[in-house]
């Protein structure tokens, strides 16, 4: 089986061709860099996404956050629920941890707020 993907690792957006045998990746072509191959392999076996969103702080301020690494794609909405429930206090420094464990990642602040 063959699967066509668009690489999302960087803005180049390479068109990738993946040869699959059952669930197993046989080969990847079309990528410009090695990260493209890694992406294609993960995407076909266990797709992962970084989640970016905001949290509402206890005083009402909205602060941008992200998962510090990609989480399983099918857990994105569950992760959003946890993010929506977070209610941290100010001040918040960029990089500080908002949720310390979620699907193998942390949710961290990407903005300062005083």
């Amino acid at each position, binding site marked *: 089986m063959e699967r066509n*993907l*668009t*690489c*999302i*690792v*960087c*803005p*180049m*957006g390479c*068109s990738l061709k993946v040869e699959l045998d059952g669930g197993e990746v046989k080969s990847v072509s079309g990528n410009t860099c090695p990260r493209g191959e890694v992406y294609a392999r993960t995407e076909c076996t266990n797709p992962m*996404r*970084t*989640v*970016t*969103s*905001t949290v*509402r702080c206890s005083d*009402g301020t*909205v602060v*941008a956050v*992200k998962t510090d690494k990609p989480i399983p*794609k099918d857990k*994105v*909405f569950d992760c*959003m629920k946890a993010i929506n429930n977070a209610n941290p206090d100010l001040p918040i420094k*960029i990089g500080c941890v908002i949720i310390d464990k979620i699907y193998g990642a942390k949710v961290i602040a*990407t*903005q*300062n707020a005083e």
Partner: protein
Amino acid sequence: MTDLVIIGGGPAGMSAAIAAYESGIRDILILERDVKLGGILQQCIHNGFGLHKFGEELTGPEYAWRYEEKVREYGILFKTGTMVLDITKDKIITATNEEDGIFTIQAKAIILAMGCRERSKGALNIAGSRPAGIFSAGTAQKFVNMKGYMPGKSVVILGSGDIGLIMARRMTLEGAEVKAVCELMPYSGGLARNIEQCLNDFNIPLKLSHTVVEIHGKERLEGVTIAQVDENRKPIDSTREFIACDTLLLSVGLIPENELTKAAEVELDRITNGAVVDQDRQTEKEGIFACGNVLHVHDLVDFVSEEAEIAGKSAASYIKSGTQNDMNAVIKTDGKIRYSVPQRITTKKDITVYFRVSDVFKNVKINVYKDGEQIYSKKKIKVAPGEMESIKLAGEKLDDAKELYLELEVL
């Protein structure tokens, strides 16, 4: 008298300021209209910024913070909440803020870094009513990401520019249903990765060669009628289809904000809607430079920063020793290549020429002719209007050039 005044404290302005500082200029002032530095990056909370510059994927606010930290470390002066009202060709700047009121500054050099704005709904002349619920994608982004409010729950997006695609995902993650993204052209204006991760991930249909032909609803939007368009981009009546929605987001293009550039009587390029500049990003008004989205709309902030560094360094050298031009060549394009930046070359040195094409072309050669003689050629598998291209020209090949001609040859 201030050595260097930079209009705009977004990625272009901060990067230019840092480059000028590192080139030895100390008397720098950044004027930023928003309450903090960072410009539009503050509301671009998604990731994908900085791969070129930092080799990692940052969100917009994180990318901005890297530059803000530098600005603070160097002690570069900046005034936020400060709107520039006027610039004269003699480099007198009039600005206003709450603390200083309306004030003027005489600058030795000015860098224009005001960014761009979204094309508004008004310019589209869509038939139908005029209810609430129609926003440009960036306005919705500000409501959702900065203010924490949802403009609506069921959404149609017109235009597949990157902000529209990003907002499709963002609204979905916040619980809205995005029913379709309509794109007038047969191809998307956004990045392929954004179509993949913002639309395909959530099964949001991208309807190419489609547009919104009618708006419905009295007080609040109740729906839109969309239709497919023919080769001449005219809607085909038999394909009209009603989609119920309470929100229409427009992502139909960005326009450089050049009102101040015009005030300074700087010559503008009719295609880019930005200033005409040389390789140093100097306009034809000596000592006035431009960079970033006010010069031409970029896809990637990394390239904005890169361009701003050129402007910052050049402004520094201008402040120290004036302009030393040793040639004067214009760059012309063939139409398939819509425009180039820079548009002029005034110094013989290695330069990178950025350009955009007018349509999607496959298997092409980019050729450059110096006064009729070919000096450069490069093959590309695919070029598209949504993606800015660049070529590097060696300075030694530019000897005595009067005109450089950029051609896109379809093989």
